[in-house]
């Protein structure tokens, strides 16, 4: 990190008591949001990134594999290289960062200001006041406790990301003979990584009848190394008291219940869990941000703004992404909107809560008491969720991306978009899978032209 960046400490001069925009999290989302807010005209010194870890870049630092940045930089980078591009931008702009610092609590006060309690080793506990907050805390892995696997609690059970940290950051191997439960991307990447480092990866078991990871990772991480993938299989028992000695794997039926008689014992000293990621929203929930049960992330509008005015969300805290390029793009969008919010002077006029979870505007905000018309974006048949979930026409850009995931594997179907009850878009899709985030673009002009538009619905229909 260069000299322009303040580490923890530096609080003595009260330089961070107030900021226009505080960004919680210095990973790819936080970095891109900060850079975009600054590029939009917010003075660098009035922006602050608060990062829990000891360095910027977040999870990218341990994702040493390649495949990042093709959309953004038109070249294939590794995680650390991708992070370095954004860290470089933030440093060049001179945006201050507090590292090794934890935001314990955020409060949205009636005066429109957001006040947060922050702590670190040098300053202890202190308060920072912000005009706008961008939530960019990322996500965490689903732990063993959430998976209901019986057995003792021996050493040798790790989440895939923890193992990735050991191998790639600490340079240590968690074990020699490995079974991986869950075929999410991190699990697949770790199957290859452990193999390259000399471990024997005996099996990847996936509960669902399809993989949760990207197709390319099945090819280059499993097929390349002859690692078997068993779909509709799960771990039903873990053997070993001090250290894992083996696991019992069984086939599951369509209700995901183990089928008696299909059990198979596999000896191993390590079990990696790659069973999904959960947005980390304790801070958001604590301040009253409405969450979407489908994503476990905030419900946002076209500006990536939550139900609390001046509180924005982006990246994996909003919904779990497959591609960091899309995180950066979404975060830059949030950063620009946060900048516009500050520049409009809206914070002083804003009420605390703008709308409720259903998307109706009760209190009104930036438009001097007028209620901006909101169009609801609804996920229907086959669509699990959409981001955003509502669009205010007056704040909409010329084009608005709607990102979504489907509930199941669909082959040869139509992705249909309705404006109220009218079909306006039909896209033929050869295959859609829950493991791959999808997106469509809506044109502002089309929305404006449609009289009385109050609901946009995305759904999957038969061809």
């Amino acid at each position: 990190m260069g000299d322009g960046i303040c580490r923890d400490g530096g609080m003595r001069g009260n330089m961070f008591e107030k900021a226009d925009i505080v960004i919680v999290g210095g990973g790819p989302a936080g970095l891109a949001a900060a850079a975009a807010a600054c590029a939009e005209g917010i003075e660098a010194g009035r922006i602050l990134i608060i990062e829990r870890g000891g360095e910027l870049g977040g999870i990218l630092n341990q994702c040493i594999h390649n495949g990042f940045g093709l959309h953004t930089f038109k070249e294939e980078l590794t995680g650390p290289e991708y992070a370095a591009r954004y860290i470089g931008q933030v440093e060049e702009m001179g945006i201050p960062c507090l590292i090794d610092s934890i935001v314990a609590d955020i409060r949205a006060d009636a005066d429109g200001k957001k006040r947060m309690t922050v702590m670190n080793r040098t300053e202890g506990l202190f308060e920072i006041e912000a005009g706008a907050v961008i939530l960019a805390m990322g996500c965490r892995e689903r732990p063993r406790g959430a998976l209901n696997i019986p057995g003792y609690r021996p050493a040798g059970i790790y989440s895939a990301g923890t193992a990735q940290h050991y191998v790639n950051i600490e340079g240590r191997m968690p074990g020699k003979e490995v079974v991986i439960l869950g075929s999410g991307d991190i699990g697949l990447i770790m199957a290859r990584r452990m193999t390259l480092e000399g471990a024997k990866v005996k099996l990847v078991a996936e509960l669902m009848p399809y993989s949760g990871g990207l197709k390319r990772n099945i090819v280059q991480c499993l097929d390349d190394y002859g690692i078997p993938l068993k779909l509709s299989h799960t771990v039903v028992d873990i053997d070993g008291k001090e250290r894992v000695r083996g696991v019992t794997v069984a086939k599951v039926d369509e209700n995901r219940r183990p089928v008696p008689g299909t059990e198979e014992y596999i000896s191993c000293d390590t079990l990696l869990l790659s069973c999904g990621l959960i947005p980390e929203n304790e801070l958001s929930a604590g301040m009253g941000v409405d969450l979407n049960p489908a994503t476990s992330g905030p419900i946002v509008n076209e500006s990536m703004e939550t139900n609390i005015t001046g509180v924005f969300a982006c990246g994996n805290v909003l919904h779990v992404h497959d591609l960091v390029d899309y995180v950066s793009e979404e975060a830059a969008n949030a950063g620009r909107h946060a900048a516009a919010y500050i520049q409009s002077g809206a914070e002083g006029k804003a009420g605390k809560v703008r709308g409720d979870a259903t998307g109706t505007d009760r209190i009104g905000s930036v438009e001097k008491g007028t209620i901006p018309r909101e169009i609801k974006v609804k996920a229907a048949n086959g669509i699990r969720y959409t981001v955003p979930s509502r669009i205010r026409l007056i704040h909409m850009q010329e084009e608005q991306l709607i990102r979504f995931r489907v509930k199941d594997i669909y082959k040869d179907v139509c992705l249909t978009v309705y404006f109220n009850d009218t079909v306006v878009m039909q896209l033929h899709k050869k295959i859609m899978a829950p493991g791959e985030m999808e997106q469509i673009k809506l044109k502002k002009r089309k929305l404006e032209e449609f009289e009385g538009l109050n609901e946009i619905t995305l759904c999957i229909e038969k061809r």
Partner: protein
Amino acid sequence: MSEKKGVNGERTELTCIRCPIGCMLTVTSYPGGEVHVEGNTCARGEEYGRKELTNPTRIVTTIVKVRNGKRPVVSVKTKGDIPKGKIEDCMKLLKGIEVEAPVRLGDVVLADVGGTGVDVTATKSVERKN
């Protein structure tokens, strides 16, 4: 990978790994050595399909030990793809070396790995321990 005989050439179905989109490719190789790629949505995909049938290559990413660094290891990559058959050699060579901190992103940590003509470079900077 599934293979079936086409009318003229031999058809192979592949998933492109050059970017996360993962296009489904159909690669047809004709008796004369000519190769035709379908299903790709960019030039990289065509190159991948062609190479995967003739000379499959991969980029290798791993870590290398660092001496006197603030961190024990630094992440590295082969600057370009190397033949699939060379991956194991490449890993062995990289396990055997140690680099002295500071390391800068882009520094060559091992030149011409295993005679592939491809350099291995650092993908992160590691400061020297104070």
